[in-house]
């Protein structure tokens, strides 16, 4: 059994340690908010935070997160209320087809945790590992810069 926390909930999974964290989240834990876009660490759709750092969950084997804190898109809401970042994404039109949105939110969340008042270039750099084909990134960056408060 491999034990870790997902969105502050303790979980134990009976999975081979070499299995991808992405597959464990989606198929064992039923948390399908984390998406697979390429399976090779290029698109960032599967981004999650491990101990506060953004990673591609398709490149992490679940055995490596033993004892770690994993945050997925499902963990951003608090008591059924959207986090400020989710709210600005929604209001500013940062989500179009939405498939990159979970990963985008987590990269942005990681940035704002470290740096609550990023510049345009810092926001650009922070999401450079998350490909989006709908938005031209414009409204995503706007939403990050407009996020009013530091998350959590």
């Amino acid at each position, binding site marked *: 059994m491999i034990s870790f926390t997902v969105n502050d909930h303790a979980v134990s999974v009976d999975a081979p340690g070499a299995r991808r964290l992405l597959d464990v989240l989606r198929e064992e834990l039923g948390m399908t908010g984390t998406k697979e876009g390429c399976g*090779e660490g290029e698109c960032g759709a599967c981004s999650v935070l491990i101990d506060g750092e953004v990673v591609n969950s398709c490149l992490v084997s679940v055995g490596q997160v033993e004892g770690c804190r994993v945050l997925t898109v499902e963990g951003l809401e608090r008591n059924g209320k959207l986090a400020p970042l989710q709210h600005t994404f929604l209001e500013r039109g940062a989500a179009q087809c939405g498939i990159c949105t979970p990963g985008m939110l987590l990269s942005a969340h990681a940035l704002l945790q470290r740096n609550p008042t990023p510049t345009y270039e810092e926001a*650009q750099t922070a999401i450079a590992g998350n490909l*989006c084909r709908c938005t031209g990134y414009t409204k995503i960056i706007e939403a990050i810069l407009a996020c009013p408060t530091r998350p959590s």
Partner: protein
Amino acid sequence: MPRREGRLKVTGRARYTDDLALPDAWHGRTIRSTIPRGLIRTIAFDPAFTWDQVVVVTAADIPGENVVQLIRDDQPALAEREIRHREEPIVLVAAPDRDLLEAAAEHIRIEFERMDPVLHLHDASEELARIAIVKGDVDKALGDAEIVVERTFRVGHQEQLYIEPQGAIAVPMDDGGVTIYGSLQCPYYVHKAVVRTLGVSDEQVVVIPAEVGGAFGGKEEYPSLVAIHAALLAVKASRPVRLIYDRHEDIAATTKRHPGTIRHRTGVGGDGSLLAQDIEFVLDGGAYCTLSPVVLSRGAIHAAGPYACPNVRIRATAMATNTPPNGAFRGFGAPQSEFGAELMVEHVSEVLGVPSIDLRRKWMFRVGDTTATGQQLNESVGTELVLDAALKNASPVVVPSSPSVLHGRGVSLVYHGSGFTGSGEKKLASQVTVECSRDGEFRVLTAQTEMGQGANTILAQIAADALEVPYEDVTIVPQDTSVVPNSGPTVASRTAMVVGGLVAEAAREVRERMATEQPPIRVDKTYVQPSTIRWDDERYRGDAYPVFAYACVVVDVEVDRDTGEVRVTNLVAALDPGRALHPILAEGQVEGGVLQAVGYATIEEMKMADGGYVNDRLATYIIPTALDAPRIKTVLVENPYSGGPFGAKGIGEIPMDGPAPAVVAAIHDATGVWLDEVPATPEKLLTAMSS
């Protein structure tokens, strides 16, 4: 107001095809050709493998017709004997888990008899489609012209690269039919295709789009094939089958934007007046017809650019090659043909020694002008508005400080017809329903899928306005083909203008009837083309589109003189949408579309070997990241169209048309080099710069 399904998307609760959990579903896989052209000699199933643990489907198992329903019945669902391209599907396998599926696939051996493939457009001899548009007397006008400029332009393949790969899940029904869940743009295309291949009745097939993670045309026709395959496996396995492509298979096998060549001869008078345009437009359709005739048609109609010219001849052909079939991609032939038209303005202006902006102002359409097909433009011609707005909003040129970097600026002016071409909308005869239920719920029923562009939001907004009820009170009914009428495909910049127009009409009628009737009230509307729109399919003359949208793009580029790398730093897009129904969504369409076009212009290149794509991974097919994206400024210049709902025209595709020629013009401005092709890769540019 935020998009309808936005909350689901920002919380991770939106369900895309691969997110749908179906107990007992098996995993499916497609075994494809490995040669670009030839014959299947044998398909051998290794007796060492226990085949009764899996399900295998070949062409022999197809209960109905072995064909992918589209324009021409040339593409089989599974190849039986003849191989026309390297990704041709031949065998389908389904298994309870992925490991067994892989093991089964490894025990199937297909032997081929290889034939010489036709891999390049210049070797192609088989025609898929041909169109001629003639206005005036081009030969005479070219003979009379004081200056004739001739140039040839080339455009490459482009992958749609929606971030969610293709996929479908088929659930068999007791009566031999299926329910399909999938990532798709056109539920009724898929419906018709699956019905034919399974040989069942319309009622036995139900298609339900899941949330769609991007499409851009890439999920217009290919999902029919994915759904057919999933359905064949599910019917034979008597259980649900998931057929979800990984990225590698998606890039390798699915359709791309058509590559092609555009040859122009333009005749002008000494005063710069535009006298004649002689244009040859050739597209590489790939191995099957797919949508090539209509892509070619839209490309040809737009090939002369938004300019009034008395003598125009456009000869367009789509040719077959032994490469994976090309298909729909945002713009649908127009980005290719307008690339040539816009660069031609640049070349003529260079020869004349006048600024290209001045030439555009002199030539561009104004109300009352006629297009190449003889269509008179009676209203909502936004050329001047967008040109002025783009130039006004372009920031002052900033010359880079580094000695190794050159700066350049380029401009383009483009147009794009809204809705299906010619009599297309008449033939489609789209149907929508708006109803008020017994308990007062307002419901809008169409087949328009939400793929990020905002269909749900726009249609709800149009209905709410016409019903004079709050937006929140309108429900958009999911696009389940057993529930919604066929309002046509979600393509061709037609959703807001054509389907939205019908929804507005139906909703108005519901409101009127509510004054005298008690719910339930249901109003069905079928599209009837206005009698003022005339189109001759034979001669390609008349009103090609009800109306055109217009856009002007100004780009700034920086070119590294050591490496030929091009960075597009700023992009201003001024666009005449008729009316922007939802400015944030409209801007989103523009920003996303122009970045796809910047990728098309600079770094997106499909590299081929032996009839297949070499760079069929996300690590090798390169699209722009946030750091590659220019600062994009969108200016929406409203210019209402009397035939659209609240004045709206279509804007989904036009953002794709303008940036590529503007980038190439800007590269010329920076370096003095004309590349005349996209993508303008550093490899090509550095070679051109040093010769």
